[in-house]
């Protein structure tokens, strides 16, 4: 495994301001570490990768990492990434989005990217809140939890990102957490190597805008909660509804081998091209 200092020298842009912008104990830094180690494991060079991000605390990842990067607008990262992938299919395109970014304003792009099964890897950093703009509730804020726009607790049902993208046709779906950082390396690596649309949901603590408001403790307690409640998917499936409580599954949930968008598109190019002859 690449050592942290080696990863810093190789992958962090040295001309940015450090320490980075994220709050003390924010999970985004941990997830970024896992992303870098996963990329190192794939053996891809920095030039072969395009990292696309949206807007939000999680969107800041593309500022710090030394790949081809595209810092796009809120919710539209997948739209930019789709254009990029079609224009230059040889690039390995990785998209980083927040939960608000990916499932609220960008929800439509997400479901249709799954449906197209375009060969892009999505890393959704789910901190259950709009972190950057002051703690408004997002589609993944648990019901009854407090947000700056839900002072008495959210009254809306919560999205299960993995179930949504699975139902919409993604080829690879997995969930990890900032606590299970080593496992996250492996999940992201598999997602990058997968042909088709792949999604890794990384649960990540936001102590500042989510934890504090909901009296979940600081970063240590929030990571402890992930540790105590995450269950590997095969074991989770065997739990009875009574046993589930706050528990949630982690690991790979979907892994399909299906033609991706470009494969189908290239077939059309070939067929249409031979028609005139």
């Amino acid at each position, binding site marked *: 495994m690449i050592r942290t200092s*080696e990863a810093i020298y190789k992958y962090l842009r040295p001309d940015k301001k450090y320490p980075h912008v994220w709050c003390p104990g924010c999970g985004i830094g941990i997830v970024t570490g896992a992303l870098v180690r996963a990329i190192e494991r794939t053996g891809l060079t920095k030039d072969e990768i395009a990292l696309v991000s949206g807007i939000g605390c999680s969107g800041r990842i593309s500022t710090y990492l030394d790949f081809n990067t595209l810092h796009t607008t809120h919710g539209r990262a997948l739209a930019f990434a789709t254009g990029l992938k079609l224009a230059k299919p040889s690039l390995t395109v990785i998209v980083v989005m927040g939960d608000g970014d990916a499932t609220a304003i960008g929800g439509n792009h997400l479901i249709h990217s799954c449906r197209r099964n375009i060969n892009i890897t999505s890393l959704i950093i789910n901190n259950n809140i709009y972190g950057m703009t002051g703690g408004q509730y997002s589609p993944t804020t648990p019901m009854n939890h407090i947000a700056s726009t839900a002072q008495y607790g959210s009254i809306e049902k919560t999205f299960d990102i993995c179930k949504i993208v699975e139902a919409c046709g993604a080829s690879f779906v997995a969930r990890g957490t900032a606590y299970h950082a080593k496992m996250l390396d492996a999940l992201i690596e598999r997602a990058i190597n997968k042909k088709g649309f792949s999604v890794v949901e990384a649960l990540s603590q936001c102590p500042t805008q989510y934890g504090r408001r909901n009296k979940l403790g600081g970063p240590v307690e929030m990571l402890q909660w992930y540790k105590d409640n995450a269950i590997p998917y095969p074991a989770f499936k065997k739990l009875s509804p009574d046993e589930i409580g706050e528990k949630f599954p982690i690991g790979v949930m979907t892994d399909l081998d299906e033609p991706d968008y470009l494969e189908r598109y290239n077939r059309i190019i070939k067929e249409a091209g031979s028609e005139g002859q």
Partner: protein
Amino acid sequence: MNKKYEPIHFFLRWCKKCGICIAFCPKHVLERRPDGYPYAARPDDCILCGLCDIHCPDYAITVAKKDEFREKKIVKEEDHEKAQPDTPAGQ
């Protein structure tokens, strides 16, 4: 022991004192200094599991064998020198 080459290298300039590394070390190697920064109180107990390293949100920790630090220059010499925080202890 040569303190510079403990198995755990802290780059405290980037540390935000979140305490994650201290809390999840399985061998209770790490403790807080009076100014809140972590330090290796019992470096000889370290099993090089790397949990503190991968859990630090600020890339302020690198774990490696002591001789690896020396031989492979895993942390650049100047970064050993620059590792201390800008604010003096107690602030």
